[in-house]
């Protein structure tokens, strides 16, 4: 380690920006706030690029210890940073996409009275996210992990005057705490059994263990608990409920935190812990099943949403499910690949959606959009790039990453592949539905009757979509967004198109450089697979993917599967085209014929209601009746009040002795001495 990369500067730059804006932003001009926020965030991005340029000149994994943080007996944790190929990818994604979204926010938030506060929070988020990504131990990671949760809470509730935003912030925070509980227990288990939380200390120890063959063991427990944490942060079943509500925040926040970076922290954490997961097949199975079910589940909900941001939110949940599916079949680099391309195109989708909302003066309901193609052409074309990318149309970014995941899922189990494929079809369908509804057909914003023929449940639901129009742009008339918002859109669109080309699989004449690049992280420590294990397929740890290019026989199969997934994407496109462009009367009839099932989907399968009945109500009631009325008021308050009352009663009586009447004092003295004398006489008589 001859040369220092000064990694510690990268997280500290946004922190400095956050501090300056937070403490002084109120009194500075918008221009000054903008400068501070962009300069510090941009500097972090520049540093990341510098690190990337110097990357080959340092020995990996590169570590940088600043100082000791905690020392207790043999256990110690340092303030230290860690860089390997995985961190580098995350670092570039976070700073790059983050910087673009910072630029975009300048235009989007310009009219907001909380401008400086917004950028302070946004920089704070960057600080914690970079800490998370660059952490060299689980505890450092946990700081970032909790910090991004805090930033997420602050930014979801950014328009805290609105009750729904404040509630959504609380919901995100509380649901995340449930996940963090699992994460913490996993950390305790690691400390107990491996005596350390530092990656470079724990992983070699674990790498010496063989894969756990039984259904449960220490590594399985740690893996599942880590997955609980990841499910909270990355919005997987059963903890995904907070993410759709998080759309109450400003749209750049949805793009940065709830699409591109923070929610992928769980995927990053699972990928970072690949050494543990590779040795815990049952935990891997859990990850894969949660991932694939979430992908399917969220995609079906996304199909019926009418709020443009809610569709994207469920889409995010669904795509995160894909990433976990990839991790669950031990294709970690595929998961990270999808994470990266997803950051590009989903960030772009949210920003473009923000641009649409901005253009319509706060309207988020897709039923009141339409025909915007010619009115906001820049937004339209960038959104088109992102839509095709997420739908998996070649040769855009999403195609390569999703195809990679589906192929690797197929190698583990055909069931994963089938559900994944169906989800890909749904993804394509709901994205093109959004695309057609927003940009094609006639503009429906001036038609209030659009609500008349909707099922009643939908109409009721759309109330909160309208309420979300927090920042009103006073002017009417549809207008393209300012250039400061369009430039990030354009750059992200380019990335969404070319971003996948770093990972062109061998079957398509590429060499999957991305996989090779991440190879040293994931493959060096993979456990040796015993043959009978890989034969069982489903829960098997990585198969032969560690060794070189895949056999020729697989190549044609892979090509066929690629073809199938492209067909699925095109089918989704075709169906959306049919239903929302050619025959816009059909969806309602289909919805009507589906009846209750459709309503269940529109109501998000009543999961929120179910959680309310199962967890929230009992907790609230229990807290109210037992903890509040019973223990707090009954026991604690009562004890205090009763002792005070008792003291008052006693002193009330004792007070009468202090009458101020000298003769009564003398009487007391006489009585007292009489008692003393009587006592002495009695004692003397004995």
């Amino acid at each position, binding site marked *: 380690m001859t040369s220092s990369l000064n990694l510690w500067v990268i997280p500290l730059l946004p922190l400095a920006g956050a501090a300056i804006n937070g403490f002084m932003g109120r009194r500075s001009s918008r221009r000054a706030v903008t400068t501070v926020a962009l300069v510090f965030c941009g500097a972090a991005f520049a540093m990341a690029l510098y690190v990337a340029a110097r990357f080959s000149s340092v020995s990996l994994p590169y570590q940088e210890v600043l100082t000791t943080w905690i020392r207790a007996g043999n256990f110690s944790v340092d303030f230290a940073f860690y860089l390997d190929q995985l961190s580098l990818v995350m670092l570039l994604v976070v700073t790059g996409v983050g910087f673009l979204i910072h630029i975009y926010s300048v235009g989007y938030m310009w009219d907001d009275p909380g401008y400086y506060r917004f950028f302070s929070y946004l920089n704070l988020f960057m600080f914690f996210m970079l800490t998370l990504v660059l952490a060299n131990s689980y505890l450092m990671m946990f700081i970032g992990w909790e910090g991004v949760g805090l930033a997420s809470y602050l930014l979801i509730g950014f328009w805290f005057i609105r009750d729904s935003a404040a509630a959504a912030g609380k919901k995100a925070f509380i649901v995340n705490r449930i996940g963090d509980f699992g994460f913490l227990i996993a950390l305790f288990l690691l400390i107990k059994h491996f005596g350390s939380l530092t990656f470079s200390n724990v992983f070699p120890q674990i790498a010496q263990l063989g894969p756990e063959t039984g259904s449960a063991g220490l590594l399985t427990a740690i893996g599942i608990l880590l997955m609980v944490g990841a499910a909270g942060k990355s919005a997987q079943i059963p903890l995904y409920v907070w993410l759709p509500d998080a759309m109450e925040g400003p749209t750049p926040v949805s793009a940065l935190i709830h699409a591109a970076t923070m929610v992928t922290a769980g995927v990053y954490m699972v990928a970072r812990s690949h050494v543990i997961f590779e040795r815990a097949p049952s935990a891997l199975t859990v990850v894969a099943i949660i991932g694939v079910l979430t992908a399917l589940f969220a995609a079906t909900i996304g199909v019926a949403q009418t709020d443009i941001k809610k569709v994207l939110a469920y889409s995010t949940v669904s795509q995160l499910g894909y990433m976990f599916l990839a991790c669950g079949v031990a294709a970690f680099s595929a998961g990270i690949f999808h994470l990266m391309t997803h950051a590009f195109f989903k960030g772009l989708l949210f920003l473009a959606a923000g641009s649409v909302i901005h253009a319509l003066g706060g309207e988020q309901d897709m039923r009141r959009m339409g025909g915007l193609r010619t009115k906001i052409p820049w937004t339209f074309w960038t959104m088109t790039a992102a839509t095709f990318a997420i739908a998996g149309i070649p040769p855009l970014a999403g195609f390569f990453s999703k195809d990679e995941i589906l192929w690797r899922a197929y190698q583990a189990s055909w069931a994963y592949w089938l559900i994944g494929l169906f989800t890909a079809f749904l993804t394509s369908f709901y994205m093109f539905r959004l695309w057609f509804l927003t940009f094609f057909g006639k503009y429906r914003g001036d038609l209030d009757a659009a609500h008349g023929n909707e099922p009643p449940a939908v109409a009721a639901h759309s109330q909160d979509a309208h309420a979300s129009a927090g920042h009103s742009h006073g002017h009417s008339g549809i207008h393209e967004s300012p250039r400061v918002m369009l430039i990030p859109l354009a750059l992200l669109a380019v990335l969404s198109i070319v971003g996948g080309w770093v990972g062109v699989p061998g079957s398509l004449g590429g060499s999957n450089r991305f996989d090779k690049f991440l190879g040293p992280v994931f493959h060096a420590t993979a456990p040796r697979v015993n043959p009978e294990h890989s034969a069982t397929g489903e829960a098997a740890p990585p198969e032969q993917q560690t060794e070189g290019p895949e056999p020729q026989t697989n190549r044609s199969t892979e090509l066929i599967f690629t073809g199938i997934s492209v067909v699925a994407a095109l089918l989704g496109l075709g169906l959306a085209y049919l239903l929302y462009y050619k025959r816009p009367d059909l969806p309602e009839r289909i919805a009507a014929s589906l009846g209750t099932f459709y309503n269940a989907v529109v109501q998000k399968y009543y999961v929120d209601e179910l959680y309310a009945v199962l967890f929230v109500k009992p907790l609230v009631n229990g807290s109210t009746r037992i903890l509040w009325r019973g223990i707090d008021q009954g026991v604690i308050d009562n004890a205090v009040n009763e002792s005070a009352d008792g003291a008052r009663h006693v002193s009330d009586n004792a007070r009468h002795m202090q009458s*101020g009447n000298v003769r009564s004092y*003398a009487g007391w003295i006489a009585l007292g001495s009489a008692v003393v004398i009587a006592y002495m006489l009695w004692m003397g008589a004995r």
Partner: protein
Amino acid sequence: MVPLPYYLVLSGILFACGVTGFLIKRNIITIFMSIELMLNGVNLSFVAFAAHWHALSGQVFVFFVMVVAAAEAAVGLAIIIAVYRTRETLNVDQVNLLKL
């Protein structure tokens, strides 16, 4: 020779009379005299014990008590006269300016 208990009982009665007078009377001069009565009750037991044990220290104590009582009487009567001049009463219950 009168036995010791008689003296002690008389001394106790005198002291009790003094205490009772001190507690129930309102006239400040009567209270004052009750105090003298208590002192002399004690004096009686002192001399009785001195005679009984043939020890002089009891009688010496009595002299001290009488001296202190005389001084006290001088100061106390002066206070009583001052009180009477300002308040024009000898009733202790009406000397209550310091009470709340």
